[in-house]
């Protein structure tokens, strides 16, 4: 299983309408997560570019597209090679994740950055063509309490003290295709002979460590330069 930020391209009609007024764009992908999840790597960048060109030809409104794939769009040093391509154009269309799109906007403050990708979740893929959410990035991991299954994001109600009472046939009340996280947790803890742990009270979560405390930053003094 590859763990990544999973993103999915917006419908081409939506992308086309976002760039309708422009005659030249720069389409930027990334060789990191979005390449792994087959939505914004080299191949997808070229396919989208070809599709947009064709669409605009049909509309009699030709579009010039330059393409570029960053090694990692979330690290500005990899965007240096992009500088020459950005001359003489007003718009950058991003097939990177939301993080990459923002680094593009940071680096080129005078350009209009358009996201062509919906960035969805932190997850992975156990089966070709299927990606699943696995971590809610809560900032205070409790997987040791729940048998290695995340109740924060895999339970639709983020229940911390057990199932909600809506699960049937082991599936979540809101989606019969989705396993109830607490069924999985129960199975695992039973296997590990640790059901008594689930009988313990799990206190309220400190959400200030998650996004609710405002934007977060990690500072590692040991690796700071200077």
């Amino acid at each position: 299983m590859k763990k990544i930020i999973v993103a999915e391209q917006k419908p081409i009609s939506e992308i086309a309408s976002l760039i309708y007024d422009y005659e030249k764009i720069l389409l930027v992908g990334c060789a990191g997560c979005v390449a792994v999840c087959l939505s914004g790597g080299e191949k997808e960048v070229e396919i989208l570019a070809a599709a947009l060109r064709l669409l605009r030809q049909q509309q009699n409104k030709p579009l010039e597209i330059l393409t570029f794939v960053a090694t990692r769009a979330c690290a500005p040093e990899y965007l240096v090679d992009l500088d020459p391509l950005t001359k003489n154009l007003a718009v950058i269309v991003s097939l990177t994740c939301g993080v990459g799109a923002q680094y593009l906007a940071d680096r080129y403050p005078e350009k209009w950055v358009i996201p062509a990708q919906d960035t969805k979740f932190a997850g992975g893929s156990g089966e070709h063509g299927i990606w699943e959410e696995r971590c809610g990035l809560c900032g205070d991991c409790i997987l040791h309490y729940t048998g290695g299954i995340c109740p924060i994001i895999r339970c639709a109600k983020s229940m911390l003290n057990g199932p909600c009472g809506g699960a049937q046939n082991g599936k979540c009340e809101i989606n019969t295709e989705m396993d109830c996280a607490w069924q999985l947790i129960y199975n695992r803890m039973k296997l590990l002979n640790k059901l008594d742990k689930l009988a313990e009270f799990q206190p309220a979560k400190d959400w200030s460590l998650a996004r609710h405390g405002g934007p977060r930053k990690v500072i590692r003094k040991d690796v700071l330069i200077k």
Partner: protein
Amino acid sequence: MVTAEINPPKHACPENIKRQAEFIACYVDALNITDCSTAVVRLSSIAAGFHILSCGVEPIIQMTCRDRNRIAMQSDLLGAYSLGIRNILCLSGDHQKFGNHPTAKNVYDLDSIQFIYYLNRLQTEKVFFSGEPIKEKEKVPHFFIGAVINPFADPREFQVIRLEKKIRAGAKFIQTQCIFDLEGFADFMEQAEWRGLLQKTYILAGVAPLKNYRVAQYMQNNVPGIVVPDKVINQLQRAAYPAQEGIAICVEQIKRIREMKGIQGIHIMAMGWVEAIPEIVSRAGLYPRQK
């Protein structure tokens, strides 16, 4: 103890809910008021509780974790108490996907067991959920705290652990999800007894009269966590007078449930069929109620 459940209206006029309350007042000991159940916007359970209190009926208000963070919860709890509401049922709440605002953001800051725990602690130790002491100690609320349990939800074996956790967190009474599978429920009660839980709380068994087989099918398929056995659906489908059959099934269930050990009361979820309540209560031998 007999309680019944009613849904507040999807508008701002309290007359209907007051009429319903007056209509069944002498058949129940308290009325349980839902908090935007199945995530459909309705008049608030606190306001509805206040209205039925004015009709002389004891309200039990529901409060879910779906729509409020811990700040809003406490604020609403203080407000409800100030209006004379004394009983509260703490739930996690149906997901907004089921309601009329499926694109809403949910909250789930606390889960239902945490909610019960911190509310009980607020009342006994006189501290806010954060632990901050409440200065005017004689003015803290004293709710009778209730919780729900669904013996039929998955993972089944976890449900009795949930019951124990809720009791330990501070639930003084427990209301069950609608029971149709009596054997399954007896099994659950046996496990509860084995764990020594029956003396520690009041258990109200939930029942629901089914008007016809379509209602039964709807509940089986669309209401989270409710299991209506095929046997019951077939029985209603074959009946010449389904509504009468539905009432008869419900009365029979109440009688059999009351024979079980540890049952302190019956909770009737009428699901819009409030007119059935007087007949059910009378035929089950639970009328008149002592006030």
